């Protein structure tokens, strides 16, 4: 079973190789890249392409490794004990399964997404070493060991906010999603807007890559912003000419709010355009 991208996701050769290696050898795959280059989407698309169920675990700053495995709800057990509920006698009734457990127990091989692992505490990845390696963990409350029936394809994303420990990295395949070049970007747009006029696309991409070149932007627009922007352009029926200008870089493109998400960036951009105009006249 090989992943070759889907009709809504364009995967480059190196990405495909990394994904297939991870699936074949049943090891986790660590994905890094600029925000908006489709790290999280990858897991969704892999699951879709392989027809596997997807389990998602979105890591937060307060997340603990334990929560991905299971949680023991002592409070509701206490409450139930007061009410004389029969379920109280079995502690297993109060164990809530986490996404990792669900993925391990899945009847068919699953895809497990651990999203933004770098958001959590610095020790978080270390607490998952055994789970990643052996794909099993121990539940203290019920004294059972949960083993993966089928080793799930694990996709872990990171935004590079924290450095990950070596021991963790050694257990993973690694891939860095580079920002797509123009050619790949055209393919990506093609799968999302198959009917888009060629000339409009060319014009829009030129504007887009120009904005990315603007020095000093806090957050450069990425693939997801481009797709949003195109969606707006199509919805608003903006004529191609509006993007067209004799002097590139001297117009403010319509609906640029979709590309620049930061107030300071918008200001900076407008100022640059303004200065370019003044220089011309």
């Amino acid at each position, binding site marked *: 079973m090989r992943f070759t991208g889907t009709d809504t996701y364009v995967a480059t050769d190196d990405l495909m190789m990394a994904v297939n290696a991870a699936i074949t*050898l049943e090891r986790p795959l660590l994905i890094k890249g600029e925000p908006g280059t489709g790290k999280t989407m990858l897991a969704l698309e892999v699951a879709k392409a392989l027809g596997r169920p997807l389990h998602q675990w979105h890591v937060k700053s307060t997340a603990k490794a334990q929560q991905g495995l299971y949680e023991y709800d002592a409070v509701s057990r206490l409450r139930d004990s007061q009410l004389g509920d029969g379920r109280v006698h079995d502690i297993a009734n109060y164990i809530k399964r986490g996404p990792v457990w669900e993925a391990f127990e899945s009847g068919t091989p699953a895809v497990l997404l651990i999203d933004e692992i770098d958001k959590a505490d610095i020790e978080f990845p270390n607490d998952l070493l055994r789970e990643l390696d052996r794909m099993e963990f121990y539940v203290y409350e019920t004294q059972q060991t949960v083993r993966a029936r089928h080793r799930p394809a694990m996709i872990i994303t990171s935004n590079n906010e924290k450095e990950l420990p*070596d021991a963790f*990295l050694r257990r993973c395949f690694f891939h860095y999603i580079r920002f797509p070049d123009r050619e790949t970007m055209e393919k990506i747009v093609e799968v999302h807007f198959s009917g888009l006029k060629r000339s409009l696309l060319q014009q829009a991409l030129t504007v887009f890559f120009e904005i990315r070149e603007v020095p000093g932007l806090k957050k450069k627009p990425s693939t997801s912003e481009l797709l949003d922007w195109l969606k707006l352009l199509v919805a608003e029926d903006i004529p191609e000419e509006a993007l067209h200008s004799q002097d590139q870089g001297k117009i403010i493109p319509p609906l640029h709010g979709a590309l620049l998400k930061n107030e300071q960036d918008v200001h900076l951009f407008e100022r640059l355009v303004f200065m370019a105009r003044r220089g011309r006249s």
Partner: protein
Amino acid sequence: MLIEFFLKLKDSGLPVSVKEYLTLLEAVKAGLPGYSVDGFYYLSRACLVKDESNYDKFDRVFGAYFKGLTALPETLAATIPEEWLRRQAELLLSDEDKALVESLGGWDKLMETLRRRLEEQKGRHQGGSKWIGTAGTSPFGAYGFNPEGVRIGQDGSRNRRAVKVWDERQYRNLDDSVELGTRNIKVALKRLRRFAREGAAEELDLDDTIRSTARNAGWLDIRMVPERHNAVKVLLFLDVGGSMDDHVKVCEELFSATRTEFKHLEYFYFHNFLYESVWKDNRRRNSERFGTLTLLHTFPHDYKVIFVGDATMSPYEIAYPGGSVEHHNEEAGAVWLQRVLDVYPRTVWLNPQPEDRWDYYDSVRMTRQLMGDRMYPLTIDGLDRAMKELTR
């Protein structure tokens, strides 16, 4: 054959381990790369390289090792975009360096030489030998710049080192901030965490629940407490300029690590020794200063204080009024340090100088004495001891 490749990678400074090598073999055995060099390149990169800043290093070793085996895939070709040269150059040179630049015919001349070298490289690249190696860094070495030397403006990323910028090929735009390599420091700093319960009640407080349930005649009364957060407060004083220039890198790493590790962190700069005022922004050190006395009154005594400095100076700068190299100080530095020590019982001094050299400097000995021996080298071990002292 692959063992040698693996060893080459190791020699080039890539952090590869045996486990990763075995994984690669396993993948090759599973027939993953097919029979193409591209496939093997992608696979071995995914297996062996775990950080995008190492991609370039890997590319070079891979290229050198498999040269002549077959035509290399297009994506591996190294290019040196002209825009690098067009971008605004930014200088971080010391006075001696500047003098050196002048002696070589000035900045323009230097850039011209650099440009010619780069063009030469491009020429060679088109000439068929795609793998250039590290030649890109050599212009700097040859002119004897320090590693911080010439920095070519790079999208506002402040922490890049010049060598890196030129050296990187395809992955030149990836962020290589100081954050890398700070993990060890963070782990050491973790010792300093003191957890306090603040904020919304989210956790079951078992003891209190039992107590209040018993008081409630057995009728369950559940008590919750807020989750624990790191509540340690830190004041960081950093020595800048002069002899500290040699230790910029390690101080940057420490600073970067502390910034993300502590929520309550205040940092100030001083030069050589603490006097009546400090500053927060080196660019405005002359206009925006904070009185040390104000600091002592502003931050409560439960703040932990960390000084970072090499304490290498003339003893007069510590012991005598008016001894400062920069201004006339009414009171001796020792007096000011003593005041800080009086207010903040938990104070340490981190010294980037190696510990065995401390005895050669009178000023280090004096500072150490003032600190009550709480001076530690700026190493992982030293940090560990310092944090232990702070939490004692």
